[in-house]
């Protein structure tokens, strides 16, 4: 019988079960007050510096959450936005947030209003600065490009889901003379942010960002749990490598055939053209 089916199999229960266990375990232990360590993320330490620069120049900033909707990526972006707006509120620097998703727009408005209120300056909140432009990729990009130039943006933050428009924004931000910080889980766009922005947060660091900025125990715990989960994946891979390599050198090693067959059944085989 084929191991790969439409639905869960024993390997799913074990591996995904362990992932869930590690993450929940670390979250709960962090919530109970265990101290957890997170390494420095250079791209994130620079956020405050970038806010400071806009203040010095007396010009507004743009925080663009990309094409994110109300999903995992979009909500992470909102956490980072909240942090930046709170810093900006301290210095009375304007933050313009152009959005490409109507639902996320309503969330952003709430989050921004809250951020200003938390910092004790609710009067600084300008509803028009949280702008819904359109939900079409390039129409949105053309609108943001317009804002970058017309508002003479000093600092631009790009945190969220991005596609081809990433480079259009980053190049125009560069032309407009803005300091730019970017972070996206959309792998394909990272090289362009790396090329055109001053600081770029790579891949997974995006998810670490909100934990790093807020120091919230739940998020820190989750991050540690994620590290354990990655170790699990590395471990699985290493056991597998050992198995298949041994099988290539010494095919009659006891028990080896069973292990390799197990891995094959659940992880690898039954694909047309797989090696």
């Amino acid at each position, binding site marked *: 019988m084929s191991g790969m089916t439409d639905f869960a199999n024993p390997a799913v229960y074990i591996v995904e079960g362990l*992932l869930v266990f590690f993450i929940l375990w670390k979250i709960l232990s962090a919530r109970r007050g265990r101290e957890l360590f997170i390494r420095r993320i250079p791209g994130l330490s620079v956020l405050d510096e970038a806010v400071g620069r806009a203040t010095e120049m007396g010009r507004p900033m743009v925080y663009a959450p990309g094409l994110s909707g109300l999903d995992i990526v979009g909500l992470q972006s909102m956490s980072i936005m909240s942090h930046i707006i709170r810093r900006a509120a301290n210095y009375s620097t304007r933050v313009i947030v152009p959005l490409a998703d109507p*639902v996320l727009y309503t969330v952003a408005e709430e989050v921004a209003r809250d951020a200003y209120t938390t910092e004790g300056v609710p009067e600084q909140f300008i509803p028009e600065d*949280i702008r*819904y432009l359109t939900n*079409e990729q390039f129409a949105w990009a053309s609108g943001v490009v317009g804002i970058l130039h017309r508002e003479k943006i000093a600092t631009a933050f790009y945190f969220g889901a991005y596609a081809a428009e990433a*480079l259009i924004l980053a190049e125009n931000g560069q032309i407009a003379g803005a300091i730019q910080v970017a972070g996206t889980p959309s792998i394909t766009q990272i*090289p362009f942010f*790396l090329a055109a922005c001053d600081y770029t947060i790579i*891949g*997974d660091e995006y998810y670490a960002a909100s934990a790093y900025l807020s120091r919230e125990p739940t998020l820190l715990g989750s991050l540690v749990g994620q590290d354990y989960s990655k170790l699990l994946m590395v471990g699985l891979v290493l056991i597998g490598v050992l198995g298949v390599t041994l099988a290539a050198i010494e095919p009659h090693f006891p028990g080896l055939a069973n292990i390799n067959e197990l891995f094959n059944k659940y992880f690898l085989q039954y694909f047309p053209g797989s090696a």
Partner: protein
Amino acid sequence: MGYLPDFPMALLPVSVHGKMLAVYIFGALMAGAAGLVALMAVPPRYRKIVVVGVTFFGGLYFSLEFLLPHQPVAHIPGSAGVARFANSLTRAKPNIADWAMVIASFTLLLGTFNLFAIHSRAVKKKTEGWYNSLAFFITFFLILIVGILKDSPVSKLGPGAAKGLQSVCTSLYGILFDGFVQNLDATMFSLIAFYIVSAAYRAFRVRSAEAGLMMGTAGIIMLGLVPVGAWLTNWLPSTGLLASLRLENITYWLLTWPNMAAQRAIEFGLAIGAVAMSLRIWLSLERGSFFDRQL
């Protein structure tokens, strides 16, 4: 539309016709409104429970649909019932997807109010560039109205006039969609061709080993992918050890080994990140601006 087998609605008819339909729709609307009023009346300390519960059940559906065994397991009593339940969850999936899509589509006007507010203020106050905002309104409503009219025949005007109106609307829609929408989109997209040139030129300076490495790889791949690359190292033999130094072979090796490994490393990290975030949202453990709000 076979929704019934999976939704026990024995008390009420699935579909009604004629005058009764209006009655039913009206009744259901009233029931829905009553439900909303009831929600409004929920005291603040129970609100969190409602939100947490709804989120949990939303996630539970898709989790169980995947995780429950869809075939009875031998020697385990009750597994046949579980499998039957799991299969009914799977069958309901297209219906759930339809409902989710329709409900989500009602958000279409959500952001539009904000857009209208900004641009109508610009037009009213005649701020600089107000005519642009006017152009925004004109094009917005033009394509919307023309689009709707071209699909729905206006029979009251008489057949001739209605046909003429429809023909005009179809033509106008063609101009707006083929002429404006598509070309604006493609042109905006193609700006990247220019920006990538200036970005590469400016960014790829050997400031650091990192930048050098990125630049070197990009350069090799750029040459190796196009016919010129093959032509540049044509003088190398096409078989044997030296063949592996041919640009197209280096390119392919870079793409399939180091690049593949790097991509996979990033993807593994992101996948675990997504699992963790999904768990936190599902179980309402998430913290952060949006989730910490008082309800």
